[in-house]
């Protein structure tokens, strides 16, 4: 007797609703996690980073320089330090991220036209804050020197303001952050973190679902007389569920949060569908091969937990060693994220996504292998027919 499709679908819904852990995994857990991650980065731009100042000159010029630093929204100058050693230990303790030392004789040297040497230490252990601080310090130095030198030049080179400015800064420059104009960290990282959470859910969900039926009916009993249909029903159901999750996260990012989306929605949806099937299929295959919840979860965790690090968002793929590129090619979301970025950010032509789609195409195979293997693990349809009777 072949179970009908509606029966199989109902069975899947019952499985999902009947297991509180699985139900949590696909409902409030990813939602709460995604919200937490968004909240952590919600400020978007690192501002008011505490930076210490040791002013050994205590002159008008040194105070003017400190005001240039203070003008930067990225920095919060702390000038309570009296001596260098005291400030260094605050830097070491992590109370300040950077330290500006204004040397003695700063004003005198400036007046004589000899550039004083200002030392700035920034904590390289916190790479992101360091980059923000360095950029702010360089900018402050730029505006300060432009002001001072323009005054010098007005006196000595040319009485015309434009000429004096050009003598101080002969070349102007303009920086353009493409595709994320505000250099907003939320948009940069959360648009990769949400897919990473999605990938974690898709790697774990199918295993929890299969292990629940294994616990209740044993795997062979559950696969029953029509193992391929039984497994296919679960995979299709979960893939569809995960696809909805993916669609939801896209809607939140590019609708709710209003991040720009320049590309092709249908391509993104196809890529998501492939990612969902690839993940579900791989997870099912892992469970079939081990038939043990704890072991298969461990394998899946090793793969999906590393997804974010290997996506290439924080560190470019082109600079990863071969072993890292091989590892990431096994994780579906690492291919998906490239499509998402090139579509949403660049609005790249669809054919640019062909290599990633091809890779995702290959990753569809584990699911098919799982289906092909299913009959091997099927036993007499005892448990399933019993369930059908009930």
């Amino acid at each position, binding site marked *: 007797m072949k179970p009908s499709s509606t029966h199989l679908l109902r069975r899947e819904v019952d499985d999902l609703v009947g297991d509180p852990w699985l139900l949590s995994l696909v409902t409030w857990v990813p939602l709460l996690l995604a919200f937490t991650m968004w909240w952590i980065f919600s400020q978007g731009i690192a501002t008011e980073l505490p930076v210490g100042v040791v002013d050994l000159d205590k002159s008008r010029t040194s105070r003017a320089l400190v005001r240039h630093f203070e003008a930067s929204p990225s920095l919060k100058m702390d000038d309570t330090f009296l001596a260098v050693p005291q400030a260094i230990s605050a830097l070491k303790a*992590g109370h300040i991220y950077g330290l500006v030392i204004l040397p003695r004789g700063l004003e005198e040297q400036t007046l004589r036209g000899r550039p004083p040497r200002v030392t700035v230490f920034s904590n390289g252990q916190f790479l992101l804050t360091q980059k923000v601080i360095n950029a702010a310090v360089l900018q402050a130095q730029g505006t300060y020197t432009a002001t001072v030198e323009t005054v010098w030049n007005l006196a000595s080179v040319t009485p015309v303001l434009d*000429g004096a400015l050009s003598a101080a800064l002969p070349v102007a420059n303009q920086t*353009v952050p493409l595709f994320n104009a505000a250099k907003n960290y939320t948009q940069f990282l959360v648009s990769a973190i949400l897919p990473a959470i999605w990938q974690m859910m898709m790697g774990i969900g199918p295993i929890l679902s299969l292990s629940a039926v294994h616990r209740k009916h044993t795997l062979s009993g559950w696969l029953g007389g029509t193992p391929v249909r039984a497994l296919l029903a679960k995979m299709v159901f979960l893939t569809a569920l995960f696809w909805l999750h993916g669609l939801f996260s896209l809607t939140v990012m590019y609708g709710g949060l209003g991040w720009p989306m320049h590309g092709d929605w249908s391509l993104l949806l196809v890529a998501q569908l492939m990612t969902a099937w690839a993940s579900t299929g791989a997870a099912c295959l892992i469970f079939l091969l081990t038939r043990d919840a704890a072991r298969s979860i461990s394998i899946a965790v090793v793969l999906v937990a590393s997804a974010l690090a290997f996506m290439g*968002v924080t560190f470019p793929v082109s600079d990863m060693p071969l072993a890292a590129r091989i590892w990431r090619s096994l994780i579906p979301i690492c291919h998906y994220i490239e499509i998402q970025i090139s579509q949403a950010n660049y609005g790249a*032509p669809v054919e640019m996504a062909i290599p990633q789609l091809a890779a995702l195409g290959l990753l569809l195979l584990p699911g098919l292998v799982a289906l092909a293997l299913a009959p091997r693990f099927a036993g007499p349809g005892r448990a399933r027919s019993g369930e059908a009777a009930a």
Partner: protein
Amino acid sequence: MTLLALMRNEWRAVWATPIIGLTVFGGVLFYFFLYPLPYVKQVPRDQPVVVVNLDGSQLSRRLERMVDATPQVKLACRAHSIEAARDIFIREKLAGILVIPEHFYRDLLLGRRPTLSYAGDASYFLVFSTVLEGLAGAGSTLAAEAKINRMLVSGQALPLAAERHSALELNLRSVFNPTAGYVNYVAPAIFVVILHQTLVLGLGILGGLENEARRDGERAYRQEAASLKLLVVRTGLFTAIYWPLCMFYLGFGFQFYAIPRHADFLELNMVILPFLLGAACFGTCLGLLLPRRELAGPIVMFSSMPLVFGSGFIWPLEAIPAPISAIIQYIPVIPAIRMFLGLNQMGGDFGMLLPVWKQMWLCVALYGVLAWVLLRMEKQR
């Protein structure tokens, strides 16, 4: 149950379950190589940029060569217009665009302040800052040369002109991670997270396993032993297992990845103790609450993400919403990261880090008491 018998039982329980050994030793060893793997080249190099040279003078071609010579970027190709550059940029997956305006050389000579434009792909922050560093570095070198030339023309001596070309000499120094390498940045904190999470996971699996057995009607020694005794033996055992693993990470591991170490050996061990005890108590609590062993993995995995990004080493603590940092402060790994980074990476003074160390002991006390209460409650049921 005597203390000795309890210790024997715990020892057997850990070794009789391959998945625990695999998680603890396999996980710690595998993650040691896996997580730093993407970053082993430390800094991105030779990011490809496209140049739009609308000037075509000798000077602008010199700027092109200077840009190409920086370690950060390389010139991948040329474009004739900004629109063409944009297309190439997207098609060839480049990292940046340099635009040299028309009459750049002439305007520079005439003192008209021509504008160089640098564009970078801000979809990837690290790539963006690398590209900018390379382009702006070459640009400012050119500007400084132009300035010195002009001063020479106006009659100043070369040494004086070279010295006086800027009103302020900025000596920008990166401390604690002089090369701004990515492994040095990520690994010290991630290692602490790996040690913490695998320890918690191992104990979570052990506890879940016992709960499964109990549901099946088996009476485990966990119910028979005195609560406090069991807690001491269990956390003691995992602390003892993890101590050499900590040594492996902080000693051999740092050596292997050439990460600087500044901490005093004794002080480091004074941090390892509350770190491992806190994690072990936390893991014991988790294990007592889990109905099945396989649930420990997903919980530990999902929690890693807010712990890593909320700990303050990536995104500054100042920018993290107060409720989030207030909550995660009580997970042992958070003060541990601050303590290990402060002592070992930044060479901080133990005295100044004392509040953090106390916070680590607070975690030990918190989860120690909680685990004890949970064990007592279990016995009364």
